[in-house]
């Protein structure tokens, strides 16, 4: 299993150098990571709290991104909010993909009735518009934190990974080496972990990036509607407050534009990485573009 992984790693590394997409995406994402890691040492993050600085100041030397109507330093809010958003996405993505991959693996490997139940559930869940359910759940939960928002979103983002991985396992199950392993008397558990798992990891990694991006999209949507975490300043919540205080028509562009730009950088970065990974997993896509 280890050798396969090293081999895969090498192939991925070589591929990275050939496509600019992955590199560019990683640069965008690491710049955000850098911002949230180094930021707290440069800017006083306590000014992300309301009523800590003068209100409605345009960008200046003291406040590089100005301040909002609630008396927060916008730069400090961005620095505190960005890692929250990243964390939420990664947790939701990890939980969602782990859940989806396990279900897909079980359904694809064992087949039969288990497969039927899991696949039906997946298909039914896929038809339900996630935002509608999310909104209802979010409105029902009184105190929302970044962590429980991540969990709620994860519970609605396992379906796509489950479906892709099930399809992959269905074809892997019939590979000669799996038949060999079964004839050699290996238990189902060992076949799953030693023969099948290494071959679905790249696919799982690719769906992880997609799921993370989807989770962040959903989370930001909730926050923009004012239904995200209330205690921690998040990027979406900043946009919500800016909307509520009509920052748009008051010309306070420094309030709502920075979170939007950070989010756009984040989504484009994630998109590039996931596109590159899709190409790696599915070489057919590499032909054009």
């Amino acid at each position, binding site marked *: 299993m280890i050798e396969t992984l090293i081999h895969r790693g090498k192939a991925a590394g070589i591929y990275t150098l050939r496509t600019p997409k992955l590199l560019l995406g990683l640069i965008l994402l690491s710049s955000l990571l850098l911002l949230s890691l180094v930021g707290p040492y440069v800017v006083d993050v306590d000014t992300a709290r309301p009523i800590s600085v003068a209100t409605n100041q345009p960008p200046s030397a003291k406040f590089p991104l100005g301040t909002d109507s609630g008396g927060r330093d916008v730069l400090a809010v961005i620095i505190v909010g960005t890692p929250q958003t990243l964390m939420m996405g990664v947790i939701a993505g990890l939980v969602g993909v782990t859940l989806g991959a396990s279900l897909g693996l079980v359904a694809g490997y064992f087949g039969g009735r288990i497969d039927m139940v899991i696949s039906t559930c997946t298909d039914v869940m896929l038809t339900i518009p996630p935002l509608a359910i999310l909104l209802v759940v979010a*409105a029902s939960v009184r105190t929302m934190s970044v962590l429980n928002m991540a969990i709620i979103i994860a519970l609605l983002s396992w379906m796509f990974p489950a479906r892709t991985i099930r399809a992959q396992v269905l074809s892997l199950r019939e590979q000669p080496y799996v038949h060999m392993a079964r004839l050699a008397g290996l238990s189902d558990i060992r076949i799953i972990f030693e023969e099948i798992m290494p071959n679905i990891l790249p696919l799982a990694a690719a769906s992880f990036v997609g799921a993370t991006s989807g989770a962040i999209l959903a989370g930001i949507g909730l926050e923009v509607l004012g239904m995200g975490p209330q205690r921690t300043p998040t990027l979406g919540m900043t946009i919500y407050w800016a909307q509520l205080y009509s920052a748009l028509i008051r010309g306070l562009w420094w309030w709502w534009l920075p979170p939007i730009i950070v989010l*756009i950088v984040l989504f484009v970065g994630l998109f590039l990485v996931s596109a590159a990974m899709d190409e790696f997993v599915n070489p057919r896509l590499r032909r054009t573009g």
Partner: protein
Amino acid sequence: MFIIVVILAATLNFIIPRLAPGDPIGAVLEELRARGASSGGDAEDEIVAAYRARFGLDQPIHLQYLRFLFNTLRFDLGYSISYYPQKVEAALLRSLPWTVGLLAFSTLISFAAGSFFGAMMAWPRAPGFMRRFVPMFMVLSAVPYYLLGLILVYIFAFVMRILPLGGAYSSGTVPRLDLEFLLDVMRHGALPALSIVLTSVGFWALGMRGVMVTVLGEDYLTLAEAKGLPDRRIFFAYAMRNALLPQVTSLAIALGTVASGSVLVEVVFNYPGIGWLLYNALRSSDYYMVQGVTFFLILTVAVSVLIVDLIYPLLDPRIER
């Protein structure tokens, strides 16, 4: 499958709002108290009991569930609690045209434009500048539409002041069917529609390009070229027609999710559609309204999936048997 989805949707709808800690009657009373219209005490308890009886909240939970399921399947969605005595269906019907008009229209435009661009991007004999759109589409398709919407509002409505900030028509005008009102509606719809089209055209273009690449490798295309058919005919009748099939499936699903995708765009633009209705119902914990809207949203998706299954053989005669 269709039936399972509908019943499951109804059940979820019943359960989730009831898991919430607050209760709707309490919310209404709190509002009354805030306005100084109620002073609390015994009289208030009587009001609560009367309201609970009226909305059937005093019955055991399984009876509530059965009655709910039965009524939902007849599309009797009950009364709105915050806007009593208005019925939920009435509110839905009032908001529906706005959502369908705005979102279905922009989805269709971006589908048509995106599929055409995507096909051109994969076509080897397309003008060279077409391929340069690829990165632009990729970037745009990654941006959430409401964020782009905010930027567009700022540019066109605040800085340039050529388009309205939000709403579906100018305040003070009464909806009617004449040219003036229609133009007003179009002016108000322009920005939300533009933000949806710009961000979703990339999705269709990239999807189309992917399928088109596969179709272009097929033998029948080589044959068509060998026969000396004109380029235009090969492009439209051979390549695009086949590559469009999977796109149509996505279109039906996209049209089905139009209503639920509308929530954010309608809130950002103050557009009085289904999403706006749902958002406000959630804010005032109006059980029946929330249930009605979510059930309707799930139903539209289920129906459009069903329609795809039914019309697919018409589009692709090969599937018939």
